[in-house]
C-alpha cells in the first residue's frame, strides 16, 4: 500500500517531502443554518438554505531529502514554498485503495521548523495550511455518461455535482428541434427539466450546457456561440446523491428528448465528496 500526496503535478515525496497527516482530510463539510426565533414560540426556525464553510487542510510531515545534507534540506524547503505559494494549488491524495481525490485551495501559511539546530540538521518538520473555498473533494478522474431518450443513471459521490451536458443530433437522425434535458431521481420521477428552443442540425451542431457555471453554448461545426437564450423553460440543476441511494449504488438519472429528431447526449463530470 502506498500513500502519495501531490501539490499540482508534483509528488511531494520526489522532493524528499513526506506527508504524515492531512487534518480535515476525512472530515465532512461544515455547514451553518440561518435561524430566527418567532415571538411566542419555543425554539427557532430555519430561515434559509445552509451555508457551507471552506475546508481548512493542514498538511504536515517531515522534510528529509535523500541526499541528507544541509543544502539538500534547504533546497527541499524552498521547493515546498514554491509549490505551496504557486497560485491555486491542487492537493491530490492517493491512498492506493480508493480512487484518488483532489481539492483546490490556496496556501495561507507554511511553518517549517528544523529538527534540533538548523545548522546541523538535515531534517525539518513542516505544516502547510490550505484554505479550500470549495470544501468538497473531487475524483481525479471524471466520468462521461451517455444518455438519450433512455435515461442513464449518473454515479455520484456523497456531494452534489454539476457537470457539463452536451446534446447533439446524431447523423442518422433528423434535426433535433427544441431539446428537453430532464433530471430524474433514481425512481424515474422528474425533478427538474430544462427546455431549449432551437434546432440542432444533425451531425454538425451540439448544445453544451454547463451546470456549474450555468452557461449554454451552441457549437456549430466547431464554432461556439452563446445560446443562453435557447433556455425557454426550467432552471439549471445539480445532480444530488440524495435523489438516489448511493449506499446501494442507486443514482439519479439524465434523459434528453425533443419535439422532433432523436437527440443523443453525454454528461461529463467528477464524483464529488463531502
Amino acid at each position, binding site marked *: 500500500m502506498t500513500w502519495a500526496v*501531490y501539490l*499540482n*503535478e*508534483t*509528488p511531494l515525496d*520526489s522532493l524528499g517531502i513526506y506527508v504524515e497527516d492531512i487534518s480535515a482530510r476525512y472530515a465532512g463539510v461544515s455547514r451553518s443554518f440561518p435561524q430566527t426565533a418567532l415571538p411566542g414560540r419555543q425554539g427557532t426556525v430555519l430561515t434559509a438554505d445552509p451555508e457551507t464553510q471552506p475546508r481548512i487542510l493542514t498538511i504536515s510531515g517531515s522534510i528529509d531529502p535523500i541526499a541528507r545534507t544541509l543544502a539538500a534540506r534547504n533546497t527541499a524547503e524552498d521547493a515546498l514554498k514554491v509549490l505551496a*505559494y*504557486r*497560485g*491555486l*494549488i*491542487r492537493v*491530490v491524495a492517493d491512498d492506493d485503495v480508493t480512487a484518488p481525490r483532489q481539492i*483546490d485551495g*490556496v496556501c495561507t501559511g507554511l511553518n517549517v521548523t528544523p529538527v534540533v539546530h538548523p545548522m546541523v540538521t538535515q531534517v525539518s518538520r513542516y505544516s502547510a495550511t490550505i484554505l479550500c473555498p470549495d470544501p468538497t473533494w473531487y475524483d*481525479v*478522474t*471524471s*466520468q*462521461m*455518461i*451517455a444518455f*438519450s431518450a*433512455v435515461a*442513464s443513471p449518473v454515479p455520484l459521490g456523497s456531494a452534489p455535482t454539476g457537470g*457539463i451536458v*452536451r446534446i*447533439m*443530433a*446524431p*447523423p*442518422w437522425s433528423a434535426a433535433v428541434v427544441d431539446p428537453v434535458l430532464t433530471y430524474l431521481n433514481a425512481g424515474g420521477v422528474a425533478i427538474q427539466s430544462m427546455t431549449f428552443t432551437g434546432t440542432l442540425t444533425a*451531425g*454538425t*451542431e*451540439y448544445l453544451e450546457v454547463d451546470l456549474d457555471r450555468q452557461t449554454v453554448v451552441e*457549437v456549430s*461545426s*466547431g464554432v461556439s456561440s452563446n445560446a443562453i437564450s435557447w433556455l425557454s423553460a426550467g432552471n439549471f440543476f445539480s445532480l444530488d446523491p440524495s435523489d438516489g441511494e448511493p449506499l446501494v449504488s442507486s443514482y439519479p438519472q439524465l434523459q434528453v428528448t425533443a419535439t422532433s429528431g432523436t437527440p*443523443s447526449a*453525454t454528461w*461529463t463530470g*467528477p464524483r464529488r465528496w463531502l
Partner: protein
Amino acid sequence: MPSLIPTRAFRRPRERVSGLLFAFGVDEFTSSLPTGQSLTVTRGSPRTVYDTQGRVATIAHSQPPWSSVYNAQEGLYEPMLAIEGARSNKCLYSEDFSGASWSAIGTPTRSAARARCGDVVLDLIGDDASGTLEGYSQVVTLSGAAVKTVSFFIKQGTSTSSVVRFRDTTAATNRLLATITWSSGVPSVAITTGVYITAVPCAGGVYRLLFQTTSATAANSNQVELYPATTSALVTTNTGDLLVGGVQVEDSVFPKSYNKTTSGTFSQSGEVVTAAIAWPLQALTVYARIARPTWAGLSGTLFSDRTIVNWNNGGDLYKLQLDAAARTITSAVQSNAGTLRSVSASIPSTSFIDIVAQFKSPTTGAVTNLDVGSGPGADSTATGVFTAMGTTLYIGSISSGGNELDGGIRKLLIASGARTLAEMRGLNV
C-alpha cells in the same frame, strides 16, 4: 527603503499554474490545459466514442473525441483522447436486419431493438428451424483488393454457437469464418478463416467483436453473413437466438470506431487536434501514456506511421510516432538542412504504454532518445541545428492531417530539460 513585493504578486488565484510546458491529461475531459494552451479539434463529421461505462455515445462535428478504453487489469474504463483517421461503414442498415439491404437466409426470426449499448441498438435474431440454416446476409460493395474488416456488437442470447462469415460468392471462397460460443455471458471466438482481432467489452454484457478478412477481391460479389445458431461446419440442426447490431464492414486493415448506417454508407472524416505553442528553442522531454493499439498484435503489412505528437517549423521537425509496419515506437528529429534521425523500440505488450522521448542539443545538433520502460536508449545520430520550435503542436496526426494515431492518448506532457521516465510518469496531471 525596502523593496516591497509588487501588488500583482500573490494576486487572487483563479487558475492553477504548472511548471510544465504542456500538460494534457484526459481525466477532466477539458480542452483548457493548466499550462495555458487550449486544444482545437477539427473533424468534418460526427463519430462515436465510448463513455466511461462502456456505452457508445455519438459526438458531433469537431466535438473533442473524449472516449474510454477498458483496462482489464483494473476492471474499469479509463478515459482517453481517441484520434482516428477517415473511413466508411460499407454495411447498410447496420442496426436493422429488416432493412432493404439485408437478405434473410431461410426464415430467421427477428425482434427489433431488444438491447441497447448507448446509441447502438441490437436486434434479437434467431434460427428456430432444426434442419434449416437461418440467418441474414448483405452484399457489400468494396473498394480495392486487400484485407477488409468486419465488426459488430453482440450479446448472448439462447444460442450456444453462432457464426459470422464474409464470403466471396463469385469465387465461392470464404474470406472470414468465425465461430462464437459463450461462457457466462463472455464470448469465445474460434477462427477458421481470417483473423480474430479482439472482443471489446462494452456495457450491459455487450461485446464488440473485431475481425480482419483475408485479401478480398472487390470486383467480385462479397457478402457478410450472420448465422445465430450453427457451427463452423454450418450445420443445420442448431436452434437459438442472438442479440446482434452495429454491423460494420470497412475497406481497411483495422476496424475503427462504429458508425451507424441506414440507407446509405457513412463516411467519417479524419481528425486533427492541435494546440498553439510558443516555447523558446530548448531541450525538452516528451512523455506520452497511450493505450496499446489493438492493431499492434496483428501480423502482416499494416499501414503507415501513426502519430502521437509532432511539431515542425519549416524544415525543423520533431515527431513521436508508432511505426505500424515495423511495430515500433519511434522518436525522430530532422533539422531543415539535416537528415532525419530516429531511434526506435518495440511496442510493449502491456495494455497501457508509457513513453519518454528526449529532444536534446537543438542548438548544436539535435538528437533524440527513447525509453519505453527498459531504461533510456542511446541517443540518435545528430541531425543539424534547429533554428526555432514550431508554433503548433499536432496531437495524434501530422500537420497536414493524416497518419492519425488510430488509438488513444491518456496523457501527453512536455517538460523542459532532460527528465526520466520515472519522473514524468510520477507527475499528477
